[in-house]
């Protein structure tokens, strides 16, 4: 405990040093964020948009970073990306504080703990910073917008539809989830249960197990589920570690074509299973597009632009972006179903 605190402290210090150095140039831009209704491009020269992910160094957030950097190049702002090395709320808070101190123009956070992040976001707003969330929301906070990758309903329904299509619309299936308290996974599972009951009366979820973030454990549990339910014809891997895990279990048991799997897996990790038929589809979203959209939303916030006016988003991956003013949610669109045909096009 002591040691991890020390490391966190050291990281926060170096993070602070890094942003202070980087901030020297942007410190003197007082006008840009105040410029009312200016069209983007003209006033984004000195604009600084910071993004604090849950965790730095994992492919998911690195892909978001890539998208954000691309937006920075095209729309002309400075993109700062810094996250903790473990998914730790305290370490993340230190990084957020350092960005507040530096006085960035817009601050995006994917909070590890939405509740403890809320007061910090208030602090940031009081310091004149536009605050927003992306990837994971902090619903009861002062955030101006939440950039949402896909709706809970969208993911739950896409998982169910893709699996049941492979299973022929009926049969027993089980879910291998990961963290037992992970709010987003549990919300998706709730939708899957309700949607399966209402749309597929001949299908049944027989068990839900939790493997943690452990691929081998997910594979073993999927094997156990196939053994304990000989008539099982479907498996869902609810996170990026159990999605390839359940497919591997079906492949190892030599039951491709008898037991079908879907999951939330990154395209690269699912490609071999999509090709072998062990996985019938992987449901996720275009993570780089989410990063790009985050950067775009930051520019709109800084310029008091209209988030609902998505006409400047010309890329195909951003064609379905929707803004809901009442809830302040900017939605990327329906989730993407990756198959053997398109999974190879993505490099994460």
């Amino acid at each position, binding site marked *: 405990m002591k040691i991890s605190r020390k490391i966190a402290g050291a990281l926060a210090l170096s993070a602070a040093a890094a942003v202070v150095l980087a901030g020297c140039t942007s410190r003197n831009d007082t006008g840009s964020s105040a410029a009312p209704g200016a069209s983007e491009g003209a006033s984004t020269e000195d604009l600084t948009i910071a993004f604090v992910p849950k965790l730095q160094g994992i492919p998911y957030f690195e892909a978001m970073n890539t998208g954000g950097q691309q937006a920075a190049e095209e729309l002309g702002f400075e993109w700062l990306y810094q996250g903790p090395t473990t998914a730790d709320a305290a370490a993340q808070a230190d990084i957020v504080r350092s960005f507040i101190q530096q006085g960035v123009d817009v601050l995006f956070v994917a909070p590890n703990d939405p509740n403890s992040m809320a007061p910090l976001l208030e602090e940031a707003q009081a310091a004149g910073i536009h605050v927003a969330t992306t990837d994971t929301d902090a619903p009861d906070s002062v955030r101006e917008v939440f950039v949402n990758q896909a709706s809970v309903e969208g993911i739950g329904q896409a998982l169910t539809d893709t699996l049941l299509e492979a299973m022929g619309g009926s049969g027993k299936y089980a879910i291998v989830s990961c963290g037992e308290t992970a709010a987003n996974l549990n919300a998706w599972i709730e939708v899957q249960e309700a949607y399966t009951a209402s749309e597929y009366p001949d299908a049944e979820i027989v068990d839900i197990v939790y493997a943690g973030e452990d691929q081998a454990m997910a594979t073993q549990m999927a094997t156990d589920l196939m053994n304990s339910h000989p008539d099982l014809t479907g498996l869902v891997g609810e996170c*990026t570690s159990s999605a390839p895990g359940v497919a591997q279990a079906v492949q190892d048991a030599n039951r491709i074509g008898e037991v079908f799997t879907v999951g939330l897996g990154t395209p690269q990790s699912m490609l071999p299973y999509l090709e072998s038929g062990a996985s019938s589809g992987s449901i996720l979203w275009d993570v780089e597009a989410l990063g790009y959209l985050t950067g775009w939303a930051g520019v709109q916030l800084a310029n008091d632009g209209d988030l609902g006016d998505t006409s400047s988003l010309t890329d195909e991956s951003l064609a379905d972006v929707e803004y809901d003013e009442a809830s302040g949610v900017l939605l990327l669109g329906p989730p993407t179903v990756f198959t053997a045909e398109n999974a190879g096009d993505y490099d994460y």
Partner: protein
Amino acid sequence: MTTATEARAPQSVSMRRILPPIVTGQEVVLLVVLAVLWVLLGLFTPAFLTPGSIGPLLVQVAPIALIGVGMTFVIITAGIDVSVAGMIMVSAVVTARVLVSYDVPAIAAVALAIVIGAALGALNGVLIAYGRVHPIIITFGTANLFLWLGLRVFNSSTVNGIPSTLEFFGRGAAGSTLGVPHSFAIAVLAVAVAWWFLRYAKAGRNLYAIGGNQNAARLAGIKVQPRLVWVYLITGALAGLAACMVIATGTSTLDQSVGSGKELQVIAAVVIGGTSILGGRGSVVGTLLGAILVQTVVSGVTQLGWPTQLGFLFVGIFILIAVGTDLIRERARRSRA
């Protein structure tokens, strides 16, 4: 203490009198518990006692039992190694990267993984033997070093498209011969060799003496430090071999969660197997049985359709019972002395 005196016993005393019985009470108890559990699970689940269920279970046990052999040595010397997860991560990620980039044969990949593990283990051993700091502190430090090293090699991305070169160790059809999983057979072989070594080899008996009382062992002329280096080196080498099994049983993608939590699973198997956490006493056969027991509980809970969290409850109870009986035995021995 008693073992130290035994090690110094004159040659005239027959070996039979010095050696503990072939099978200890703890092992018998474990065997009975396992047998009862397997029969019950066979009765109450549709397929627990079928090859399609037992095979994968034994494959899952293999890396834990294998590292457990090294960890039993370590704990017998009154040490501990909490850097196992880090060693697995470094070995696995380097080996996986090599497998993806170069067309190496399985044997070369295995050799590479073992050498990496042994090197990391040797670092542990040297620091512990000559640094004279408690092993838990040293290995806690190196555990973090190894994780850093592993993450450097991962370089912020998963290793994708790992070929099936190591399928010999896997859960699939290529991973077993006549229904016996290769990885489990290797673990059993390692246990057999270690059992003989601890029982009949002088170097093996010395480990008990070191764990019983390190100073007494030194005074008795045992080269304590080189022995300790070897013990941690072997644990590292076995972790390297286990990393190959982890790659083979994993998916075609390796992510940074590899190895995570394995050190606690291994220590759980060793403790449940009856090895005294205080050092000086322990058996590798018990460790193997302990590893099988833990996985039986986890798989059993899933196959019975019970909530996953119950697995933690049962494993926790087993550990507490095992440690409790060990401490009671130790106290009884002290009051006799």
